[in-house]
Structure formats: C-alpha cells, structure tokens
C-alpha cells in the first residue's frame, strides 16, 4: 500500500505535465470559460488536433487505433494532470470515451478504418441517442423505430437527454427494429448523420436556465446499413458496452473540490461559521475524503486487472449526495444573499437535483449494487420474455 507515485508513475506524471504546460493554448480550454456551445466545440476541436499531433488524443485506445493503451493507473494520472490545468473531454466525450471504445470492441474493420481516426482528431463530434421521453430508467423499452428500405434504415421517433447533439455531427443511436421480440432483443445500434433532412435537434432548457441536453426528432431520417454496428437485433449488448465506458469515464472526479470551494467561500466572506454548520462541513469533508479513498481503492483494483463492478454505482450516488449537501451548505452560508442570481451556489443548487437522475437514477444505482455486488434477487418482472409491443407504456 502506497499513496504516492511509484518512480515510473512520477516520470509519467512529469511527462504529461510537461506536455500540457508546453502545448496548452493561451487562455486554456476550460469548459466553463469558453462561451457558447459552438465556441466550446470550435476551441475543443483545435485543442484536440494539438493533442492528436502529439499522440495524446486518445491515450486509452489501443496503439492500433492511434492510442497509447494507458493502464488505469496512468490514465488516472493523465486525467489528474488534465484536471489540474482545467482540460476535459467536454463536447468530445461521446466520441472519445463512448463511441470510440465501443467501435473498437464491436465495429467492423471498415467502420473502424473509416470512423476512428476522424473521431480521435475531433473532426467527427458524436452525440449519444439512447434515452427517450417514455424510456428513462427502463432504457430497453425504447420505441424509436427503424424500418429497412433497400440499403438504408429509415428512422422515426424521438430521443432526449442527448448531450451536445446541437453541435454534433453524428449520433450513436438505438432503434427498435423488431417490436414482436422481447424488448432487449429487437434493438439495433446505428450511427446516424445528424446533418440531414429528417433530423431536428431542439436544445432543452434545464431548470438551471442553461442548456446542456437536447431533444432529437427523426422523421424518415436515413442510415445506410454500412452504419449499422453489430448484427440487426444485437444493439442492446453493444449499448451496454457504451454504457460501461460512459460510467467508467465518470470515474475521475474531484469530490474534495466540493469542500474546498466552501472553504474558499468562508474565507472570502470572512464571516465566522457556527458550530452546527462546521459539523456539517466536517461531515461533508469526511464523506468526500472517504469517497476519494474508495475511488482510489477501485482504481487500484482496476489497475490490477480486476473488473470494477458496481462500486461505481455506489460512487455515483455518494458524489450526488456530497454535491447536494455542498449546495445546501453553500446557500446557507450565503444567507439572504442566496437570493441573488448568479451567486456562488446558484448553479450548484439548481444543478444538484439532476445528479440523482442523469446516468441512472439513485434507485437504479442502488438496484445495481444490491443485485450485482451483493447478489440480491432481481425484481420479479411480469413481462419477462413478452414481446415489446405487448408491454404497457405511458
């Protein structure tokens, strides 16, 4: 057990830090500092090209596809150093951390050759198109349908909660191609060009007043069969790969930052904290510190080649609770000034309720822990094995 870098890790960290310090453009590429979504996309693409030139665009991908096949431990260091200078995947996350690894695992040779390099260069910007208004926790009940017409699939339906779809070029899309099969068996995985008639992207305004997600509508939109990943009807299994990569890309987070921001606020305001609030701050710190350590334990396991399992679900719920508690303490510290829009905790306070929704609700996460880690029985499902179109939907 050792919480410090090994000599090899320390050398790698120095290499990464050196690279970043030398190449980071003037003004940085901090997601929140880059203005409109279009501006974010433009500047992130420029930075991605720099990364690509130096072989850092897709460090976890295999060397065959332009990557460095970083070990989990080194990937953590890579991300820590990126965090340090405020660099993240941002609008490129879908391509770099979800679609790319999925294609490497399940795509055809032709698809990989055609799509991976432009994705790594940031030329193709990807959006995930899985969730639907009627399919949230029960994602596999999705109803967007595709019908075969010659060498094309014709797609009709609606997706929602699609991050960055308003700036994306393509989407990885789940469609129902057979409604007479049980829900998991009639799904196909397609890659759709978003710049075509029949695709309409409508930005969604969230309760924060901001826009992160989109609704995407399909009316007779076309997908060439060459853009079908895996077999017809095999989409659910491939989607699970994507979802696994999505979750593990959330793995790196700075949960202690939530405490540090509160401490900064206290110092700034110079108002002494009462003992009750101090206890809550200490509780928050204890939770965040322990969570940070749990994350390190899981990363060590992954580094040793063990499958991470559903511990990630524990962490997602815990970090959500930390953020909710931090926002709550934050507005309490502000007192009446918490009325002012744009105050230090307005965004966090308004964003926090989404933490237990996005990427799987609190309830779904706890089910996963109970079933996959603890081995408790699944909920009985009265519709198990029933054809999709015989299951009630709202």
């Amino acid at each position, binding site marked *: 057990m050792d919480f410090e870098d090994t000599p090899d890790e320390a050398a790698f960290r120095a290499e990464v830090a050196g690279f970043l310090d030398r190449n980071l453009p003037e003004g940085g590429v901090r997601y929140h500092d880059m203005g409109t979504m279009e501006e974010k996309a433009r500047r992130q693409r420029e930075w991605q090209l720099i990364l690509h030139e130096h072989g850092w665009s897709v460090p976890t991908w295999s060397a065959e596809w332009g990557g460095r096949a970083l070990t989990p431990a080194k990937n953590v260091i890579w991300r820590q150093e990126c965090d340090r200078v405020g660099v993240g995947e941002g609008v490129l996350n879908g391509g770099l951390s979800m679609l790319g690894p999925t294609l490497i695992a399940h795509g055809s040779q032709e698809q990989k050759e055609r799509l991976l390099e432009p994705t790594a260069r940031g030329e193709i910007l990807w959006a995930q198109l899985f969730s639907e208004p009627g399919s949230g*926790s029960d994602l596999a009940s999705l109803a967007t349908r595709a019908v075969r017409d010659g060498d094309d699939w014709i797609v009709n339906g609606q997706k929602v909660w699609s991050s960055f779809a308003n700036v994306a070029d393509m989407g990885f899309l789940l469609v129902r191609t057979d409604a007479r099969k049980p829900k998991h068996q009639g799904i196909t995985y397609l890659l759709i060009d978003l710049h075509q008639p029949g695709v309409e992207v409508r930005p969604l305004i969230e309760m924060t007043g901001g826009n992160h997600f989109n609704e995407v509508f399909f009316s007779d939109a076309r997908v060439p069969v060459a853009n079908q990943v895996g077999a017809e009807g095999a989409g659910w299994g491939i989607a699970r790969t994507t979802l696994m990569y999505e979750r593990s890309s959330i793995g790196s987070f700075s949960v202690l930052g939530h405490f540090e921001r509160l401490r900064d606020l206290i110092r700034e305001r110079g108002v002494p904290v009462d003992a009750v609030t101090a206890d809550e701050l200490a509780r928050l710190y204890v939770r965040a510190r322990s969570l940070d350590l749990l994350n390190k334990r899981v990363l060590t396991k992954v580094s040793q080649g063990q499958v991470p399992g559903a511990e990630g679900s524990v962490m997602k719920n815990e970090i959500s609770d930390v953020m909710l508690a931090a926002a709550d303490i934050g507005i309490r510290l502000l007192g009446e000034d918490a009325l002012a829009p744009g*105050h230090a905790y307005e965004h966090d306070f308004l964003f926090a309720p989404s933490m237990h*929704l996005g990427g799987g609700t609190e309830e779904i996460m706890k089910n996963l822990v109970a079933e996959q880690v603890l081995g408790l029985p699944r909920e009985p499902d009265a519709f198990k094995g029933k054809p999709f179109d015989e299951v009630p939907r709202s």
Partner: protein
Amino acid sequence: MNFAFSEEQDEFRELLRRFVEERWPVAETRRLAETDAGFDRAVWKQMADELGLQGLAVSEAHGGQGFGMLELGIALEELGRQLAGGPFLASAVLSNFALSNGATPEEHAEFLPGIAAGTSISAWADAPGLAVDNGRASGRVAWCIDAHNADLLLLTTRGGLIALDPGADGVSIVAAKATDLTRKYAHIELAGAPVRKLGVGLDPDAAAVKTRHQAVIAVAAEQVGAAAHCFDQAVAYVKERLQFGRPVGGFQAVKHRAADAYAVVELARSAAYWSWWVAANDGAELGEAAHVVKSIASEAARTAAYENIHLHGGYGFTWEHDAHLYYRRAAANEVFQGDPVAHRAALAVELGVLVAG
C-alpha cells in the same frame, strides 16, 4: 380539543382554491415572473373586490373583514400552492403585522384602509442596520419583498417602526432579479431619506419581536401550501408514468419516498395549523410556534420540491416543468427571517437546553 377548521373556514378555503386555480395558477405566476411587477393589477383588484382578500385580517373599522391568523393562514397556504399572490404577503400580511404591532390607533386608521382595500400597496422589511437620525434615514436594505411595487415603505429599525414615501428624495429602490423567480424583490438604498417615526409611546422591541414571529408563521403557511402542491403533483405523476410495464409508483423505493414525503408534509401542516391558532389567540407560545414551524415547514417545502423533481425523472429537471419554481421558492423562504438552524438555536435556548450566546 378540536383540531379542525370551522365549516365557514373550509368553505373559504374552497372558494379561494377555485379563485387561485382559475385566475392565478402557477402558469400565470410563471408568466408574471418575466415582468418587473410580478402581478396583474386586474387580478389584484378582483382579489380585493370579489374576496376582500387584502383586508382579510384588517379590522372591520378599517374596512377589512376582521378575521385573524387562521383565515390568513388558509389564504397563504392556498396562494402558496400556486406560488401566487404577488404583493399580498408584503402588503396585506407583513405590513399589516408591522402596523398592527408597531403603530398607534391613529396610524392604523391612516394606513390600514388603503392596504385593506388593495388600493395601496405597502412593503415591510427588518432593517436593524439603518442609521436613523433627526427624521432622516441612511443605509441599505439588501432584500425587501415587493418594495418596488410599494406606495408605502415600512422598516423596523432599532428605534422602532418608520414609514417612508418611496418617491421621496434620498430613496432609491431597484427591482432585483432573484434565484426565486416567483417573488419580486428589491434593493433599497437610503441616503438621508425623510422618514416618519410610527408608534410613538409603544414598546418598539416587543412590536418588532412579535412582527418577526408572525412573519415567520405567515411564510410557513405558504411553505406548507407549496409543499402540499409539489407532493400532490409528484404522487399523481408516479401513478401515471409507466416503466418496466407498470406505474413507477408501484416500485417500493418510489412508494417509500412518497410515504416519507407525505409524513413530513403532514407534520408541517399540523405544526402550521397550530401556529396559526397560537398567533390568532395571541398565545404565549408565539415564539416557540414560530421556531417550530420554520424548521419543519422549511424541511417539508424543500423535501417536497426536491422529490417532485426527482420523481418526475429528467422531465422534472426541465425549465418547462414548474417543479423548479417551487424548488427556488423553497430556498428563498428558507432564508427569510432566519434559517432553520438559527430558529432551532433560538428554540433550544427557549427550551432551556442551550445557553444563549
């Protein structure tokens, strides 16, 4: 012992609920959030003419209906359900309290009739930091509800209640956007503004304390209404929304969230109704009631607002859904006149388990 409203009170609630749902539903509150005033003068006039609402708790001698905190509580709870009412809280409730406690009978006769008729709007704030000297006041009141809509400003200063003309020299009132979109706030700056001292001969401290306790109890009534609305909306939704082929409200985790929210809403409602009774009867427990109800009603309002978002899934997180309006209001009400932690500290002192300090 009888913990029930009278038939007349129940009928008043019904009448009011219909009025608010028809004329000032939350959709209208949402529309008005985009305006500076935050209320529609026509509906304000209907509130006065058809229901006499602004004069509900003003004595008949001053043109009011002469009811007390029980009826006012019902009104605030029902308005709270739709986040409606605009300056009703500022004028008909808070200013009415401030004047009733801190002004002389002559001053009552001067100010209350306009407030009761809805023809004059008043705003009130606690302003212990103001410097008042020789009939002039200077200083800042960071947040005052509906001050920019007011014809009359009432401020509780260290020396007692003062009245200001918002249009006088040295008075600057600027409407302020707030995280709470559904209530209107303003910043007040006074630079040697001419003020009139009210309630000469009365005990200013007793009046200030009583006004603060009553203010807390009034806002808690609103919190309970908002909480109940959020709760009802969430429960209705989980009965309809299907996932995995069945209503999500049939999953035990969702059922238990709903049961937990139900419990806190009903606890808060019970405390609120009692607090109205204490206030209506000028009971010795007024301070205790204010501390208790602020703590539990804040918890209920925030819990129900959060659960309403959560149980609506992603849809509850959209701007389009009303859930966030309640969540925002819940935060604002929580910090009004002392947050729950401060009220619990005061309660602990009052109960003799904490040394004041």
